[in-house]
């Protein structure tokens, strides 16, 4: 295989890895702060991207054509709305069940995911069909032999990286982040230190859901197609990525996301079996990794949480 194709596979894998990592970051935030696994995360992503599409239609109807204004407006509307949805979910479903067995939260968010998915399918106009996501980013492409890189992909990748760096900075370099880490480490002590526990939980859910919405919009701009069931696989992959990285660890989520995409790309591009087995291969490796390192590749340390 020539270097151009290897580069192409690498770029494909990096783009996917970025999307997976963003989803995994959400899982890891929720688990870090509240020890909950929110299975509706992938579907929140999907609702976010449909919200972004709706914003686009609205702006389009108003006659706004500048692509940069459109892109920023889509992202802002989608992330803000999903942050709000995250708060509502945390307030109504997660916090009241805090003392209940973890299985209850797992089940309730699983059902919430189905509810969100089916609602979009049934109530969004023509929701059961795939929708074209607007291709408004510049499509100039750089071609070198068999390697082709589009400007929109580069922009999306940089934006995704910026979101991850921003989240990292927020958690590790700000007072708010310190409070989140404090809650993650020990809820009781954090409370006695005067940290507003309820606010921190709601903020974390807003942040995680907004990142999911961003990942969804990024996915939409990258593939130019969205559908009501897109959150299912992304949720499963994001969750697995968070687990192999080490649930509750931000680095782990990022590592897990890129690792998963790398495994899929490797399976499809380089291994001798049919590419239809790429998910089988990637998940099988995840199972093997989990058997080897049950707490994830980056073993959890109490102080490293979130």
């Amino acid at each position, binding site marked *: *295989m020539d270097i151009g194709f290897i580069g192409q596979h690498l770029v*494909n894998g990096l783009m996917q890895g970025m999307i997976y990592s963003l989803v995994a970051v959400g899982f890891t935030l929720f688990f870090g702060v509240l020890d909950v696994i929110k299975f509706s995360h992938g579907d929140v992503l999907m609702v976010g991207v449909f919200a972004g599409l709706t914003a686009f239609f609205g702006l389009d109807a108003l006659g706004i054509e500048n692509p940069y204004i459109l892109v920023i407006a889509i992202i802002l509307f989608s992330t803000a709305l999903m942050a709000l949805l995250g708060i509502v979910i945390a307030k109504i479903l997660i916090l009241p069940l805090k003392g209940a067995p973890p299985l209850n939260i797992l089940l309730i968010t699983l059902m919430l995911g189905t509810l969100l998915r089916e609602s979009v399918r049934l109530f969004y106009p023509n929701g059961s069909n*795939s*929708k074209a996501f607007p291709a408004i980013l510049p499509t100039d492409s750089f071609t070198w032999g068999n390697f082709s890189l589009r400007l929109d992909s580069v922009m999306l990748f940089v934006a995704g990286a910026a979101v991850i760096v921003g989240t990292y900075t927020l958690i590790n370099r700000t007072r708010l982040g310190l409070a989140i880490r404090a809650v993650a480490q020990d809820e009781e002590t954090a409370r006695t230190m005067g940290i507003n526990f309820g606010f921190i939980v709601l903020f974390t859910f807003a942040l995680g859901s907004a990142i999911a919405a961003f990942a969804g919009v990024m996915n939409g701009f990258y593939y130019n*197609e969205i559908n009501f069931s897109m959150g299912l696989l992304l949720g499963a992959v994001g969750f697995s990525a968070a687990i192999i990285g080490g649930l509750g660890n931000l680095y782990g989520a990022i590592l897990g996301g890129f690792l998963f995409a790398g495994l899929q790309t490797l399976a499809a591009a380089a291994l001798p079996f049919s590419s*239809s087995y790429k998910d089988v291969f990637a998940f099988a490796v995840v199972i093997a990794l989990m058997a080897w390192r049950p707490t994830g590749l980056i073993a959890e340390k109490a102080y490293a949480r979130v």
Partner: protein
Amino acid sequence: MKQIFRIASILALGALAVTATNGMANAKDKVTVGYIGPITGKVSAHGIAGRNSADLAINLRNQDPNSKYEYELVALDDECKPNIGIQVATKMATDKHVSGAVTHFCSAVATGAVRIYHQFHLPVVVWGAISPSVTYGNDYKEIHRTIGTLTSQNKVAVDFLTGLGYKKYVVIYDTTDYGKGHLEAFANDLLATDGELLEAYGVAADQQDFTAELTKAKSLNPEVIYFAGLSDLGIRVRNQMEKLGIEAQFAGVSGIISDTFIDGTTASEGSLAMRQGAPVEVMPGGPEFIKKYADADYKDPAEAYGVYAYAAMNVLLDAVEEAGPDRQAITKALNTMPAKEYSIGMVEFDDHGQNVNSLVTPLVVQDGAWVTWDESEYASGKRTLKGK
């Protein structure tokens, strides 16, 4: 009372004499042929239309002075239910007076019943069921089918695409029976041409990302990416081809034909697809069938598939004409039947008894709509496909 009995006896004898004289005048043996379809139940409209059309074929044949036999129809109802289908198929197959039959509209019924026909050596021509497994799921010599299968469009696709001059193909198929069936048919049909299948990639029916498969495909430099699956997946494949800068022509099976495909893709213009079937009006013998059906004054309309039952019955009757009423002779005649034109177009059975010439219409996306190829600006040369 005695008087009445005597009159009745005389009348009966008279009737017998008339029949005998008629028989002598025509010197034709009677041959019984069967029809099975859903005459009652949810899809009874099709079953009744099929029965009427089969009946029409028999009546017309009986009026033909050149036919060697006089035909009689036995029609049974499978209700479109597999269990009932097995019962009536057994009833028909074990009736030694029945020489052959035209059977089934519902695939689930036909799939189960073909074994019975094979067991009792009853030659049948399936008229309405389109699942590939009816003919391709077995090696039964008794089973034939005039209507196309889900996958028979691939022969037309291969002929059409190679006719346009495309030689190098990559297939992306979903790994359900639907996608796999199309791949097998396409690959098989391509062997008979100078086209080359470079590689086929199986993908999950809910897969989102195809960049890995498409990057591999790109490295093979195909002229056509042929997609076998449904529109959702087709949209993603088409969009991601664009993203990776793949300049190959995109063509798909009938599963992608929908407005969703056009609405969902960023670059649908010029995409090709094969539509299964054609309206009866444009079939070679369609208008003639419509007229004869109307003249026969049946109470119920012929529906979309009546013409298929009509053609299937004509195929069977032609085999009887050639081979006589013996079941095995009819089977042999059907299996060696040369290609011949019927109301639905050419009928030519392959070694599974499947008619290889099914009506398929190539379509192309032009200005945001699926347009029949022949009427498109691509066919007229005003616009060009990829690589042309």
